[in-house]
């Protein structure tokens, strides 16, 4: 079943730079999809349009039946509640501990107090950090911090998990662990995962759906297992 659809999407920034040209693509429900491409090829722009941080200049983006490009600013939060978003730089609250960082996502949307605790513990268990509830981000390794960020992204049980270079700051071993974790979430929870990465080793090994961008154009859309390492 189709979950994400881009129809003739073009994105031109206010300064005149065109980051995405007439893009068409489709991602299935429950899919695990890598977005790859050289620096400046428009990967982050594509992702930002998914969570409606940016609006396409032309074309249509549909997520689970919702026309994201038609969404009014005041209603963007309704989309965000169905998404989880993870970045390269973790974006944790330094003065809050692991538990509080994850709980913050639920508090911010006004979740019930008695719902918060079990959901946070479940998410932290899934990312393997249940033993570090009271630790502060500064005392965690990069990989652990990213796990906290992932726990925060999935705590509200999103349908879609969006990751922009989540392993960009991590060494190869930790990177692979994080991707393994994302794969586990994808399998266990059925969450659709869209992950931007530079890391060819990971893409090569995982044999997933791969969308390759080049200078804002769709270079190739490899079905699961079709990906071969080409110089982009």
């Amino acid at each position, binding site marked *: 079943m189709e979950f994400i659809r881009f129809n003739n999407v073009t994105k031109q920034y206010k300064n005149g730079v065109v980051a995405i040209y007439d893009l068409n693509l489709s991602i299935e429900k429950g899919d695990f999809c890598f977005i790859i491409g050289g620096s400046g090829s428009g990967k982050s722009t594509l992702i930002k349009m998914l*969570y409606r941080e940016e609006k396409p200049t032309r074309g249509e983006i549909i997520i689970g039946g919702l026309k994201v490009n038609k969404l009014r600013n005041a209603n963007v*939060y309704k989309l*965000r*509640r169905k998404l989880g978003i993870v970045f390269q730089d973790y974006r944790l*609250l330094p003065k809050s501990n692991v538990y509080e960082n994850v709980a*913050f996502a639920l*508090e911010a*949307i*006004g*979740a019930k107090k008695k719902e918060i605790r079990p959901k946070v513990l479940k998410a932290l268990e899934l990312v393997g950090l249940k033993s570090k509830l009271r630790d502060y981000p500064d005392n965690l390794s990069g990989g652990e911090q990213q796990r906290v960020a992932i726990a925060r992204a999935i705590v509200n049980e999103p349908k879609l998990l969006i990751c922009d270079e989540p392993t960009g700051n991590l060494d190869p071993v930790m990177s692979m662990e994080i991707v393994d974790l994302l794969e586990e979430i994808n399998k266990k929870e059925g969450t659709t995962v869209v992950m931007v990465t530079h890391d060819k080793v990971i893409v090569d090994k995982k044999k997933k759906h791969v969308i390759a961008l080049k200078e804002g154009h769709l270079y190739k859309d490899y079905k699961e297992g079709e990906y071969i390492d080409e110089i982009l």
Partner: protein
Amino acid sequence: MRFFRIVGRSIRDAFKSVGRNFSLSLASISCIIVTLVIVALSIVITYNVDNFTSELKKDLTIVAFVSNEADKADVDKLKTDIQEISNVEKVTFKSKSDIKDEMMKEDEAFENVMKQWDEEENPLQNTYLIKVKDIEKISETATAINNLSAIDTVKYGEGMVDQLVTVFKTAQKVSIVAVIALVLMTMFLIVNTIKLTIFSRKREISIMRLVGASNFAIKIPFVVEGMILGFLGSLVPVGLLIYGYKSLYNYFGGRLFTDIIKLVKPEPFIYYAAGIVVVIGIIVGMIGSGRAVRKYLKV
């Protein structure tokens, strides 16, 4: 219910942040205190002025003495002439024989002398008693009456009354200007206090947006913070108002300088005034933070 949870958390966060930006919060609160003390003062002045002017209005009368050369027709015509003056509310005639009778009743010494006067000999004067609509204009009205040719002289109240009213009205105007200036300055300070909070919580706000907090949920903690600043700033002025006015009232025995100026009884007046002061404090805080939120939080 989600609404109440979000508001509840906002109140908790707002208190934390008042403590965190303590020095700037204190500056805002001090400014609110000064503003509200003056607001309280002007409420006290305005209400008292309104009160005693309306009391005076009931009592204050212009007495116009009619020239003894005027004949009966002149005297009758005077009544309509006086009534035509714009500020005049009510005109009553008191003849010199009425006055004679009144005086004779009051004092035996008068009686002995006066009872020998007949109508022709009576040296007293016919009078008109005039009530005015606006006592602030009483002196103009008195002059206008005095200008009528059949009127000898005009007297009203104690000479200082209209001056007193003018003094109070001026004080009131000055305090209104001061309040407006201070409210603007307070808003400026509140905007800056809230701006600082917004900046210090930039990361939190961006995460809130990311995880799908509504605009309302993002903005409300800052607005609540402004309201808390306003509320805290109103406590000192309210204390001053309640205890200050009570002791002022007791010290002067309910009157100011002269019996003409009666002070308003402290209860329940001060409680209403205190309520107004608190509400103004909260509203000023709310508007200030609302402006900051609109300016620095583009959501």
